[in-house]
Structures are given as structure tokens and as C-alpha cells.
């Protein structure tokens, strides 16, 4: 169970290109992160002499090899040392996912090592398992980010059942859009959190969709977003310049909006815990970095006596290290052939009878 010719634990290379970030990491079989490189954080763009385009597969094509090289070199790992190659294959942008998958297939073929496809959202939850440094399942999993807002029943480290997701906007997207209405900077998560610190979260009563409908483990943030717009701009909304809004008014809206969004996340998590009889809640994704959400979840955990495991701040946003879930998949024999493809959307179980 060790690298040939040494007593070191086996290592795998993980590649992540599901959205804007090009990321690669080397993680050993004890889930120790030896390197964790994300293109947008490494100043790699300087090597290309220009601004890194925010999106487009072309940017991933430019970054993928330098990012992999950097991940290997920071981990002091040669290609020959790798025991497997893991890659996120869904969900995400097809063109972007394909870049990572093609790189991973090439390496797996070249090195004659197993190729392990990884679900990006499940990897977000596995970040909690890595942080806890012990088995945390079964648990309810909440993944909250700019693109996702999902609740899972996690029976084990690689068996996640989707309980429900957003029916319109992801919660991070609502933060971004409300920030734009208020003239606050992008991304909206940090800027709303900051503005909300000096705001009155009780000044405005914004809707909390499905809050009382305990059987419905789904989210909706579109109505909340529209309510905020109506509060600022009236019904029907008139044109306005966010720069002319009073700073205290902005702070009060930010605080009231944030509280409404977080109320729903906390309530739905509690309802899921109760519905499935679980006593552990794992939370991952970019919005899990929100201080007020972390505080409110901690309070709920004390009140309801469940164990709360939050992904560490460094592993909330997209990264490749969390794809270490691939070790679990490898142990279960869940590897793929070179014909494996990417999937853009959330994989849902078909309704019964279909």
C-alpha cells in the first residue's frame, strides 16, 4: 500500500475545472493535503502577462498544465509517484469540465493508473470529513455556494442522497444579485456580510420561502431577491442609482436580507436532520464561509444538540483538495474507463415510475 520503493503513503493527483477556477491538488491516502493550487489565487496570470479571463474553457486550457505542475512540485511529487488520478466530472460547465477530464485521462493512460471521476458537490461535503480527520457520516449535508444550494442525506463517505435543492437561484447568487442592487462589490457574500455588520436585521421583513413547509426540503431565493428589489425601487421598480442609497439603509437591507436567507438555510437543515433522524450536520461551499451563517448554525447545534462540522474556510471555495473523496471511491472500486464523460447538471434520481 505504499509508493514503489518507499514507505510513503500513496498519493493521488486531483484536478478540478468545473467552473471558473483551474485547480489541482496532491492528497495522500491519509487525506493529508500535500499541495492545493487554485489558478486564480496563485498569481499564475502574471506568467501569461495579462488578466486571467474569468470564464471560458480557453482559460482552463492555458492554466491546466502549469497548475498541475505547480501542485506536483509543491507536493514534492513526481508523476511516477502517483497512485491514481481524480477529476471532477460533474456538475459544472461542460466545456470547462472537459479540459480537466482530458488532462486527467491523458495522465491516467500515460501512467497506467486508475482514473476516478468525482462529483464536485459531494467533494464539498467531503471537505468536512477531511477537516474532522475522522469518519463523520452518517450526516445531513448542506452545500451552499454561488451555483448550488443542496441538502443531502450522507449515509457514508461516498453515498449521498439528494434530498432537495433550490428551485430557482442558488443562495450565493442571491447574495451577488442583492449586492449589485445595493451597489456593493462582487462577490456579494463578503460585501453583504461586511455591510450587514452595521445594519439592523429586523428593519425589513423579507420572505422565507417554504420555511414552515417542513416536508419540502427545497429552497427558493428568487422571491427574496425580488422582494429586496421592490423594497429599494418600489412596485413596479423604478430606475435608481445604487450610489445614491443611504449607507445605513443599505446596511439595514443587507442585514435583513442576510438574516432571511440564513433563516431558511438553518431551518431547512434542522428539518432535514429531523426528517432523517441524523445528529450530524456537514456544511460546505463558498457561502459556508459566511460568519453569520456559521454563528447561527453553531447556535442551532447547541439548541438542537446536533454535531456541526463546517468546512474549513480554505476549503469552502472551489479547490481540488476536497476531491480526496476519490480515495473512498477508489477503495470501493469506483474507477472509470477512458470513455467516461462529463455531465453538466445536477444528477437527480428519476421520480418513481419513470
Amino acid at each position, binding site marked *: 500500500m505504499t509508493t514503489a520503493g518507499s514507505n510513503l503513503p500513496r498519493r493521488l493527483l486531483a484536478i478540478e475545472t468545473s*467552473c471558473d477556477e483551474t485547480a489541482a491538488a496532491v492528497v495522500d491516502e491519509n487525506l493529508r493535503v500535500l499541495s492545493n493550487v487554485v489558478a486564480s489565487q496563485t498569481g499564475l496570470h502574471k506568467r501569461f502577462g495579462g488578466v486571467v*479571463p*474569468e*470564464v*471560458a*474553457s*480557453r482559460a482552463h486550457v492555458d492554466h491546466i498544465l502549469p497548475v498541475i505542475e505547480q501542485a506536483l512540485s509543491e507536493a514534492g511529487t513526481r508523476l511516477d509517484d502517483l497512485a491514481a488520478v481524480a477529476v471532477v466530472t460533474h*456538475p*459544472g*460547465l*461542460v*466545456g470547462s469540465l472537459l479540459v480537466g477530464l482530458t488532462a486527467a485521462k491523458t495522465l491516467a493512460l500515460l501512467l497506467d493508473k486508475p482514473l476516478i471521476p468525482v462529483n464536485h458537490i459531494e467533494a464539498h461535503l467531503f471537505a468536512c470529513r477531511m477537516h474532522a480527520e475522522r469518519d463523520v457520516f452518517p450526516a445531513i449535508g448542506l452545500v451552499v*455556494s*454561488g*451555483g*448550488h444550494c443542496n441538502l443531502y442525506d450522507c449515509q457514508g463517505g461516498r453515498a449521498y442522497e439528494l434530498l432537495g*435543492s*433550490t*428551485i*430557482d*437561484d*442558488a443562495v*450565493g*447568487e442571491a447574495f*451577488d*444579485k442583492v449586492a*449589485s*442592487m445595493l451597489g456593493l462589490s462582487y462577490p456579494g457574500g463578503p460585501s453583504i456580510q461586511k455591510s450587514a455588520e452595521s445594519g439592523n436585521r429586523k428593519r425589513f421583513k423579507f420572505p422565507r420561502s417554504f420555511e414552515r413547509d417542513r416536508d419540502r426540503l*427545497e429552497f427558493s431565493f*428568487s422571491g427574496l*431577491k*425580488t422582494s429586496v*428589489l*421592490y423594497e429599494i425601487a418600489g*412596485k*413596479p*421598480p423604478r430606475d435608481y442609482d445604487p450610489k445614491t442609497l443611504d449607507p445605513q439603509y443599505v446596511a439595514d437591507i443587507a442585514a435583513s436580507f442576510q438574516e432571511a436567507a440564513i433563516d431558511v438555510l438553518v431551518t431547512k437543515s434542522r428539518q432535514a436532520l429531523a426528517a432523517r433522524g441524523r445528529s450530524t450536520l456537514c456544511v460546505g461551499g463558498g457561502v459556508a464561509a459566511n460568519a453569520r451563517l456559521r454563528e447561527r448554525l453553531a447556535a442551532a447545534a447547541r439548541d438542537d444538540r446536533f454535531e456541526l462540522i463546517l468546512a474549513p474556510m480554505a476549503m469552502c471555495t472551489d479547490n481540488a483538495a476536497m476531491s480526496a473523496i476519490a480515495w473512498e471511491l477508489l477503495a470501493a472500486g469506483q474507477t472509470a474507463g477512458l470513455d467516461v464523460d462529463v455531465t*453538466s*447538471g*445536477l444528477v*437527480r434520481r428519476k*421520480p418513481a415510475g419513470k
Partner: protein
Amino acid sequence: MCRNRARHETTIPRSHHFPFLLGRIGSVTAKPPFWIFDSASESDTEALGKRLAAALEPGTVVALVGNLGAGKTRLVRSVAAAAGVDSRQVTSPTFVLVQEYEGEWPIYHFDTYRLASSGAFEDLGVDEYFAGAGVCFVEWADRVADVLPADHLRIEIETTAETGRRFRLTATGAQGERVLARMGQF
């Protein structure tokens, strides 16, 4: 089935029982033909989506224009549901830029909100989607106007009251006109 309908092209009827206002009847005018639909509720919007779904043909590009909260994603969800897609799958594509739904015909749901330029939109390979057999919906279409095909259906959504919306449908070419004409038959 959409292909067949395209062959039975007819003119826009003069009378109808649907709350549409006709922008043009019959003869060619300098302005492109348009329809206005006033929706008082989400169920009215659903009816519009159903009607639109029945009139669309493969390769149609629908450009959606309207402010935050106007109901762009809501309209796409209505069309997709009418095409047999589980409506829970139809969520905002703002973050992933494009979502694909498998209904009676493929639906490609784009969102340009996060894109810095129409060039970045082009980089997604939109030409191939536009030339394909599915129907494309583009949210925040005005941000990428120079990349849209000349012939498309433009839908502007305006908030008129808390649940009230005005939809203005404009054809910019022959295909868009056919879709509008067919909408008048149902």
C-alpha cells in the same frame, strides 16, 4: 413535431381569445411584428410558456431581456415544463452559464449576467448551440447582442405590479415571425 408545424405557416389571425395585443396584422410594416402579453399572475405566465412551447421550432433562439426579478428564469421554466422537463431542474443558470434540459426537444438555457463581454459568451461555443436542433434561451441577451443570430425571438419582460408582468415578444426575422404566427393559432 416542431418541424412539421413550420411547414404550415399561416398569417397572424385577426381575432383571438388570448390576452395578446397584436403589434402588426397582416401586411409588412417597417417595424418588426410584435405581441404584447399582460400577465397578472404566475399562472398567466405559465399559460404563455405553454403557448410559446407549442409554437417554437428547432433552432429558435429566444433573447430574454428584463431586470433582476422580472421573471426570465420563470418563463423558461414554464416553457420547459410544457416540453416535458421536470421543472425542478430549471434553475437560474447565472453561475454555470448554461444549463441543458432534455424535453421533447433539447433546451439550452444561457445566462450572460456574469460575463464580462460578448466575446466570453462566444467562447462558450454558443454558435454550435444556436446552430443545433434545440431551442436556446439567453437571459440578459442585450449584453451579448452582437453575438446573437440576426433572426431570433426577443422577449422583453417588464414588472408592472407585484405579480404583474408585461411580456413584449418581437420577431427579428423569418423564424421569429413563424413562431409568433403559430402562437396565434393555439
